[in-house]
């Protein structure tokens, strides 16, 4: 590998998460449109560091129009920011974590000094089981309408058959996540239920029981990214991004090893995750068993606190849950609870595409 290639994914120009805000995650917000959901969060992400929209040079958002069934909802959502005079702006039909990546690349290039990234995911207006089938191969797979729970269950079964996990492991992850979520004021599902009790749940799609599934969540989130001097001026304790990369695997489920995540491992390697120890990991594992696959791919040992926020099992706003992982990790660095952290986001069925962001304090 050439020097240039090995450096890809590492930070050249220091860039930090200067501010992070999210809405309280709920099962269904049926009172507000996307603009009304986003406005308070955008106001908070700016207000927390005393800046306004005039202080950012670029805006990038992540969302999917399929979720609310409204075309170009990402255009109207810009009304929540107020883009006058006009600003450079971009949108990805993906989780906000990928919007953050686009903004980070522009910051690396030196094109801009600060960016607003936001995302909105309303999972409640439509039927996620059907909407998420539309991201699958349109010839061979989508016409059968496999739902996301069924596809995740195929992966969970493969993991059990490979001797890498048990249903008890899934329950233990769900129990721990929702117990940790008790200290997360924005969590949707938080409770202290022992794994033994969770194992009495019915199967939704065997081998996945109710507790191993993410909740259906409406939520929005925003981050301000800032380079060097601006980051220091705006934030007393910025969380610096030291590495950032994302990788994708084939959409063909039957051509993948569902029990491992080579794309996560490659993204982690390119982002320099193993350069040093991390204190916490915020992992976007919508289904409990996926945490096991991701922990292995990230090479994390048991000294690392996994998902102290409760993770996606506590709230899984589609298109936002990944960005929230980065925000949660950054918040723990800014508050001094962690010195170095890794955040992860996923997209597609059975962890098809994965993003890894490594953050450090001063």
């Amino acid at each position: 590998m050439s020097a240039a290639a090995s450096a890809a994914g590492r930070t050249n120009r220091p860039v930090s998460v200067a501010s992070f805000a999210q809405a309280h995650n709920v099962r269904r917000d049926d009172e507000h449109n996307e603009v009304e959901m986003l406005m308070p969060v955008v106001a908070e992400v700016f207000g927390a560091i005393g800046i306004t929209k005039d202080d950012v040079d670029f805006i990038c958002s992540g969302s999917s129009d399929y979720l609310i069934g409204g075309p170009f909802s990402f255009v109207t959502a810009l009304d929540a920011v107020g883009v006058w005079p006009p600003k450079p702006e971009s949108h990805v039909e993906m989780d906000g974590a990928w919007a953050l990546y686009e903004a980070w690349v522009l910051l690396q290039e030196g094109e801009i000094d600060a960016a607003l990234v936001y995302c909105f995911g309303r999972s409640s207006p439509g039927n996620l089981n059907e909407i998420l089938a539309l991201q699958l191969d349109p010839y061979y797979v989508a016409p059968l309408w496999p739902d996301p729970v069924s596809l995740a269950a195929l992966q969970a079964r493969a993991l059990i058959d490979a001797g890498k996990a048990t249903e008890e492991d899934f329950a233990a992850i769900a129990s721990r996540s929702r117990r940790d979520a008790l200290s997360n004021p924005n969590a949707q599902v938080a409770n202290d239920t022992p794994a033994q009790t969770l194992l009495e749940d019915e199967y939704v799609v065997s081998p996945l029981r109710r507790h191993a599934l993410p909740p259906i969540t409406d939520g929005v989130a925003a981050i301000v990214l800032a380079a060097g001097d601006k980051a220091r001026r705006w934030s007393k304790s910025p969380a610096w991004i030291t590495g950032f990369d994302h990788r994708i695997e084939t959409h063909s489920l039957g051509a993948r090893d569902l029990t491992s995540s080579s794309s996560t491992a490659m993204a982690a390697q390119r982002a320099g995750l193993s350069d040093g120890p991390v204190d916490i990991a915020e992992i976007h594992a919508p289904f409990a068993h996926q945490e096991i696959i991701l922990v292995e791919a990230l090479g994390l040992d048991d000294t690392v606190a996994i998902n102290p926020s409760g993770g996606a099992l506590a709230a899984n706003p589609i298109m936002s849950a990944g960005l929230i992982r980065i925000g949660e990790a950054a918040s723990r660095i800014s508050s001094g609870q962690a010195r170095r952290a890794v955040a992860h986001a996923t997209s597609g069925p059975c962890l098809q595409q994965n993003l890894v962001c490594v953050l450090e304090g001063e």
Partner: protein
Amino acid sequence: MPDSEALHASHRLEYPYSRSVGPVIGAFLTGLRDGRLLGVKGSNGSVIVPPTEYDPTTGDDTGDMVDVGPGGVVESWAWVSHPLPKHPLTTPFAWALVRLDGADTALLHAVDSGGPDELATGDRVTVRFRPAAERIGAMADIEAFVPEGGAA
């Protein structure tokens, strides 16, 4: 300002998409209509099912089409006790990744096995096509896979 002020309405979106399938997917779907299962030779000699114009691992062009199946092995499965409205079967069934005989990758479809206790990873299954007159050149031409030897 009471928040309960917001109105609600149901809203239906319909997209009558029709897709061009190209030479490789087209050959596979034509095969289904004719009651055959086809794979395609990948760049390293492996056989990819369902076939694509490119090798999913290397991105290279794929080669000749070859017959596969009709039997195969269950690589993973998930039991659906309560089928959803758009699922391929209306009675409880398993989603499964089936590696057809002669193939190196697995195909996603339904297995009609009767019950979750009648199925295990590694089991052999075989294809059950719809009657020829009902087949149109689509994945639904396969009604389901069934345990080889006919449990269900």
